[in-house]
């Protein structure tokens, strides 16, 4: 069967054809195809929410596709569970490591495949020795006998890689493994991936970093909104072309922020520190201004936002709202002072998925809406109606669980919830993660409008175009510190990446 993939030499090792998967009303994958060749590294790119992680889960055997076919070596492949995937020689490294915190590093690597001695007992000495050898191959030193709990994310990722190495995978799937790794560690990882390729394995590499994609991979498949867009040889592609295919239009058409007159300082953070997480973070945001907090995942951006809002405690420093000190550790006080936080993880932190749209939209205003302590007479519905209309939330019924909405509309409900509190300061963490392009532009326009109305906006974003398009000032964080402050005019991709990776700037 021909998939029309250019540059394919010989029969592919692993083929996906017409794979479809939906979760409830949401179609995550629609007829996706993919062909991996042995000895080749293949990149899978797409925006957040394009369906990459779902595809990974299908390859891992964690999700069964609703329809579509998979073949390995030309033979039909049916994965009834992760064990089948393993048996077929498919190893997956997830973006979030999946370790057992209570067990030792070596056991994490060899779980279910422990080396044995007499009477089928586990040979822990051999196990530790083998783990040690794997780490030597990776060129790192991690004590195989320590528990996995407490390992840094980079170390956890290395343990995952060692695990994949340990069973000589024929197909290695890496789902954004480099997000938390430094340059040295990435190089080491790529070395391992290349040597696996040389030994005939196929690598599927998922990343947002195009330099890495073009560095490692020979071919690139683009997904958009759960659908296959293209598969091409990397040599025939440019970064701009890939981005155009991912987004479906030119990047420059993202909505830029309109200039707004700057007003008084509304949010001031001084010397904020939390042991082991971030230290000595200071900045201020004025009304009408959008300040972006940039940096790599794990640099401590979201943690700062959570501490400012009072969800997490902090050890030292102070937060002032419009000149008044905000007591720590109390989201309720923060809300009362006019602060709102749209968190990064919509499902976990932003919404109560099983509650209705109206309950979610008014959750932060439940006290203000009550009369004599009672919530009666459809006060919530009326309030919810106002804000869902203003934000054009598309929901069948306001009483429907918010889980039935699409990602973009869910994000709008989160925004509605917080705008309903009429905040003076809006902290927004990854405002457009996992939502479609149209809604993205809407959110950007909304943020710009809000700034125009005099709100102080602190935006955390991992998407450079968004940061560059929206922010008046950019603060770059690295390893828990603000290492660079760039005004709009000086901010560009290079200067930000340099600062974010800890190069060129000193803390």
């Amino acid at each position, binding site marked *: 069967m021909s998939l029309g993939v250019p540059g394919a030499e010989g029969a592919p090792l692993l083929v996906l054809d017409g794979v479809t998967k939906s*979760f*409830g009303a*949401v179609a*995550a994958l629609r007829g996706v195809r993919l062909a991996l060749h042995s000895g080749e590294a293949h990149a899978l790119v797409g925006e*957040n*929410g*394009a*369906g*990459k*992680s*779902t595809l990974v*889960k299908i390859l891992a055997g*964690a*999700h069964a596709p*609703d*329809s579509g076919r998979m073949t390995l070596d030309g033979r039909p492949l049916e994965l009834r569970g992760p064990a089948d995937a393993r048996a077929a020689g498919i190893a997956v490294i997830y*973006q*979030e490591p999946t370790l057992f915190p209570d067990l030792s590093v070596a056991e994490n690597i060899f779980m279910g495949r422990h080396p044995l001695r007499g009477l089928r007992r586990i040979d822990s000495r051999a196990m530790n020795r083998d783990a040690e050898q794997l780490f030597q191959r990776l060129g790192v030193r991690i004590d195989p006998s320590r528990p996995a709990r407490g390992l840094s994310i980079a170390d956890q990722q290395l343990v995952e890689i060692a695990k994949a190495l340990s069973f000589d995978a024929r197909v290695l799937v890496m789902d*954004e493994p480099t*997000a938390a790794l430094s340059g040295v560690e990435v190089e080491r990882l790529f070395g391992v991936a290349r040597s696996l390729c040389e030994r005939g394995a196929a690598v599927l590499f998922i990343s947002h970093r195009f330099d890495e994609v073009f560095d490692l991979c020979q071919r690139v498949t683009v997904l958009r909104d759960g659908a296959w867009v293209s598969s091409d040889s990397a040599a025939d592609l440019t970064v701009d072309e890939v981005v155009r295919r991912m987004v479906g239009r030119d990047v420059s058409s993202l909505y830029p922020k309109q200039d707004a007159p700057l007003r008084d300082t509304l949010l001031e953070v001084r010397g904020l520190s939390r042991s082991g997480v971030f230290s000595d973070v200071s900045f201020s945001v004025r009304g009408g201004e959008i300040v972006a907090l940039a940096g*790599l*995942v794990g640099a401590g951006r979201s943690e700062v936002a959570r501490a400012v*809002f009072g*969800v997490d405690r902090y050890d030292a420093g102070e937060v002032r709202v419009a000149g008044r000190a905000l007591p720590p550790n*109390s*989201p*309720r006080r*923060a809300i009362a002072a006019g602060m709102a*936080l749209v*968190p990064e*993880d*919509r*499902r*976990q*932190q*932003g*919404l*109560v*998925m*099983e*509650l209705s749209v109206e*309950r979610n939209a008014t*959750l*932060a205003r*439940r*006290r203000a*809406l*009550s009369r004599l302590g*009672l*919530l*009666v007479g459809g006060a919530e519905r009326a309030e919810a109606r106002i804000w869902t209309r203003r934000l054009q939330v598309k929901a069948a019924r306001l009483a429907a*669980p918010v*889980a*039935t909405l699409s*990602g973009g509309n869910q994000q709008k409900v989160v925004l509605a*919830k917080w705008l309903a509190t009429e905040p003076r300061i809006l902290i927004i963490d*990854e405002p457009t*993660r*996992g*939502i479609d392009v149209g809604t993205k532009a809407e959110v950007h326009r909304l943020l710009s409008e809000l700034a125009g109305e005099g709100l102080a906006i602190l935006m955390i974003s991992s998407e450079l175009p968004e940061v560059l398009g929206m922010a008046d000032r950019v603060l770059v964080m690295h390893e828990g510190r603000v290492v660079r402050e760039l005004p709009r005019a000086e901010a560009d991709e290079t200067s930000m990446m340099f600062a974010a990776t800890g190069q060129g700037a000193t803390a």
Partner: protein
Amino acid sequence: MAHDSLYAAPPSGADTERGAGRLAGLRGALGTWDAAIVAVLLVAVLLASLSVQNFATGRNVQFLLLDLVPLALLALPMTLIVVTGEIDLSVASTVGLSSTLMGQLWLSSGLSLELICVLVVLVGAVLGAVNGVFVTGFGLPSLAVTIGTLALYRGLSFVVLGDQAVADFPAGWTAAAVRAVPGTSIPAVVVPVLLLALAFGVVLHATPVGRALYAMGNNDEAATFAGVSVARTKFWLFVVSGAVGGLAGIFWTLRYASARGDNATGLELTVVTAVLLGGVSIFGGRGGLLGVVAGVLLLGVLRNALQLADVDANALTIVTGTLLIVSVVLPNAVADVRARLHRRRRRAQPSVS
């Protein structure tokens, strides 16, 4: 950089599927759970009246309701606690300790019974606060903590009175506990219990606190982000649970005119059963007070009718246990079947077209 949170729940696929299944259940079977349990209750009452001798007599109704008072009382705060995703297994031991304290104080302190009652409720609140501190202050699982205090409080109640019983409470008080509303066979004590149920119902269903309870039961992180003080709210729920346990202890003592260390032993299981039977999800975040009240009544009617039909009281535990299991297995089984049918239909469609 990070997850595609839109589609795949990060931890595991199975969770997503179960979430979807639960959702289907929410819209289908469980949306009408309240109605179903009320219907079952009515059918049970009807059947019992027709087929069991002496069931539909004023005297039996009086006893049935009196027997249910402690269960009904304890089920109220338990509903709120389970809605937040926690559990309090120490309630029956709190009843026992309250009862023996009341007996010991009456026996030896010389205080007036009014004052003793107030003290007992306060002590109950303190016992609840101990649970609350362990659960919210130290961040321990409420299941483990309240299993511990279940043993601790029951043990203390034996320490207070040993294996003796205090029975010489004033006849006026013990008679008042079982007195009926004049002209009916309904015990007067039912009235305050109903008022209390109404109060709990209003708090749960029509106040900001109630909204917060559901929110934290479904997702305490999102609730925290929305300005809900999760720990503080849970702490006070445990305090309320303890205080209500004290009240139930006073009633139990007066009703049976006996303060004993083993009063209400094992009642916690019946309370949990009633709450789950009433449609409250053990995972938290779902269920209502009407269903729980119906669940309490259903349990009472079944046990009473079977007892009248000469079934051994101890063997009745089969009924309680089976009801508990059915009430948790059924919704899931229904949701599973629905999901399977739905999938089959969807799979069938393309081949037809």
